[in-house]
């Protein structure tokens, strides 16, 4: 927590056995109602305890309490959703009740100038050594534990699959919309954390937690700024040695310091400093929300390549040309196939197929031809990564091809991405490939950028910094 080198433990916030909802209500439109409903709808298997100062009897079928101190059982997570002036007292009671973690969704603190009210929360959290996320945040979602403090109507947001991507966002709106995209794209979520004002738990704590979280394979961060620069660097340095961090930084267009006295200071503004830190410590920098997802899915599913050599297989000549350009524009190369691979391909491919990269296996290529190509390329020592272009508009491409690509998702430790450009027929096959863990992209350029990001991180990791 702030000012100390020890980090907040978020285990009980993300994987609670017993949850108290402070401000729970049956009244439609109340945040406390939406949160209760979420826990019930998500099928949260642990204890659920509504707390409301005017409670009598039950709230949504669960015994209600006037104070968290009345529950008389150990509570892992308290979610606070009551008016801002009442929050300090509720937090104090959480401390007394020995709650292990708190999420304060309530707004109306430092973000609107109520700094003193927020300082009260910080003092209470310190006194009880309470990890507190928020205030002014969406909180957390964990599809494994089914803990979900998001107060968004469930019918408006897709439910994510369970997976390896942990998504962290200071902003609630970027958080919820991107979370919806992650779910809509069929990507697997490990943890979602929206941390708002970061009064107590900040990006440094969260990064440290996710670095050591076995369920998290890749950390995806939307960041507007950090509060503790030096500590952020320390934690980031350790984290990128273990797993990739894909980061999108908001607010990069600000210019360098205006009234600088030296050339260096006029060039090296705050945005440039962030960029430098990301570059230096092995972050993968995304330039848009789309890239955030493109990179997240390749890191989540594919092994790190040993080099920058890409084999392109395609059933469309033009796409092969575009993809070749994209590969080189991203600093990757198309190698020469090894002699044994060339000979073996010559035997199985029809005479019209030129045995060189990009390997255009023809508009009539079917599942069998893709399979032959994959089998031989996956054994070629000259190749580090494979980009499979499958255009489903062609006569040969059907579910057989989609299944073949899906089957080869693990190319004997070679990273594989697929490119399928097209409409609804294509989309249905893309879903088949993605459900098996093949990252599929609309354009060769996006696919090449994803492979380049994978290679860049692999290189950073191998450099052993």
């Amino acid at each position, binding site marked *: 927590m702030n000012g100390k080198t020890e980090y907040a433990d978020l285990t009980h916030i993300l994987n609670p056995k017993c949850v108290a909802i402070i401000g729970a209500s049956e009244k439609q439109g109340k945040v406390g109602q939406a949160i209760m409903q979420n826990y019930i709808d998500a099928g949260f298997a642990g204890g659920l305890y509504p707390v409301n100062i005017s409670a009598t009897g039950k709230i949504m079928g669960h015994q209600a309490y006037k104070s968290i101190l009345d529950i008389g059982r150990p509570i892992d997570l308290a979610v606070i959703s009551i008016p801002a002036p009442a929050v300090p007292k509720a937090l104090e009671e959480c401390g007394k009740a020995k709650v292990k973690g708190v999420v304060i969704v309530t707004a109306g603190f430092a973000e609107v100038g109520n700094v003193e009210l927020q300082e009260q929360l910080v003092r209470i959290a310190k006194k009880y050594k309470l990890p507190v996320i928020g205030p002014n945040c969406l909180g957390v979602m964990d599809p494994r534990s089914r803990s979900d403090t998001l107060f968004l109507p469930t019918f408006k947001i897709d439910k994510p699959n369970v997976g390896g991507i942990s998504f962290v966002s200071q902003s609630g709106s970027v958080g919820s919309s991107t979370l919806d995209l992650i779910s809509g794209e069929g990507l697997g979520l490990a943890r979602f954390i929206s941390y708002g004002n970061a009064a107590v738990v900040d990006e440094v704590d969260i990064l440290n937690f996710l670095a050591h979280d076995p369920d998290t394979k890749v950390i995806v961060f939307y960041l507007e700024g950090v509060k503790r620069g*030096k500590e952020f660097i320390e934690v980031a340095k350790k984290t990128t040695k273990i797993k990739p961090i894909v980061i999108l930084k908001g607010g990069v267009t600000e210019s360098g310091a205006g009234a600088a*006295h*030296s*050339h260096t200071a006029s*060039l090296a503004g705050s945005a440039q400093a*962030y960029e430098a830190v990301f*570059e*230096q410590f092995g972050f993968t920098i995304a330039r848009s929300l789309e890239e955030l997802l493109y990179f997240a899915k390749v890191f989540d599913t594919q092994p790190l390549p040993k080099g920058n050599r890409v084999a392109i297989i395609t059933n469309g000549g033009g796409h092969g040309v575009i993809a070749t350009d994209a590969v080189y524009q991203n600093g990757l190369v198309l190698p020469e196939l090894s002699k044994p691979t060339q000979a073996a391909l010559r035997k199985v491919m029809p005479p019209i197929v030129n045995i060189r990269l990009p390997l255009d296996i023809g508009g009539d290529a079917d599942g069998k031809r893709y399979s032959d190509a994959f089998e031989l390329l996956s054994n070629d020592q000259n190749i580090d990564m494979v980009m499979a272009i499958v255009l489903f508009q062609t006569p040969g491409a059907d579910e057989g091809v989609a299944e073949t690509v899906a089957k080869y998702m693990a190319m004997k430790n070679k990273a594989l991405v697929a490119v399928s450009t097209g409409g609804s027929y294509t989309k249905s096959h893309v879903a088949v490939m993605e459900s098996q863990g093949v990252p599929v992209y609309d354009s060769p350029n996006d696919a090449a950028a994803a492979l380049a990001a994978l290679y860049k991180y692999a290189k950073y990791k191998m450099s052993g910094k």
Partner: protein
Amino acid sequence: MPRLFDYDRAQHLLAKYRIKSIESKYVSSYGDAIKFAAGKPIVLKAISGKALHKAKSGLVLLGLSSDKEITEGFRDLSKRASKFKPYKILAQRMVKEGIEIIMGGNTDPQFGKMVLLGLGGIYVETFKDFALRTCPITRSDARSMLEQLKSRKIIAPDEKSAKMLEDLLLKVSKMFAASKMQELDLNPIILHNGTYDAVDLRMLE
């Protein structure tokens, strides 16, 4: 207002870290300057804490060779510098032509001391081709800074020059991190014949 390191103090610091800078000397008369030149071309610069951008303020005169040029230059510069009192006049050897780069340091409010490498001289602000890292930097950081530059093939065309720049960058980073200065410009550093000369510098605390 940040305070400019005195030129002698700055030179001393560079020497301590074995960073080569061009031979220079404060001169108090044109006679001094002529003696320093000893028949070879020199540069005259007026140094004042009130004029942080010397060239922009017209306080740099290049390529003065003959006694007449030096005498007139000294008088002219003294006149121009009179509005930036107090000032001193520095005579420097004229450097051979070469590639101009910048190395520098800045103190970021969030991340602390940072070191910069870029294409230098008059190109700094036009092309903004630079790389930045937090201090301390490792050799692989220095290498990646060089690789990040669009102009890398101009400033480090071969492995030997790349190695020389890495060594220099490591020294600059070490000096900047250890000192009280908040901002540093070594701009330009002129690269020529496999070596370099720091030609102008600005250290602010």
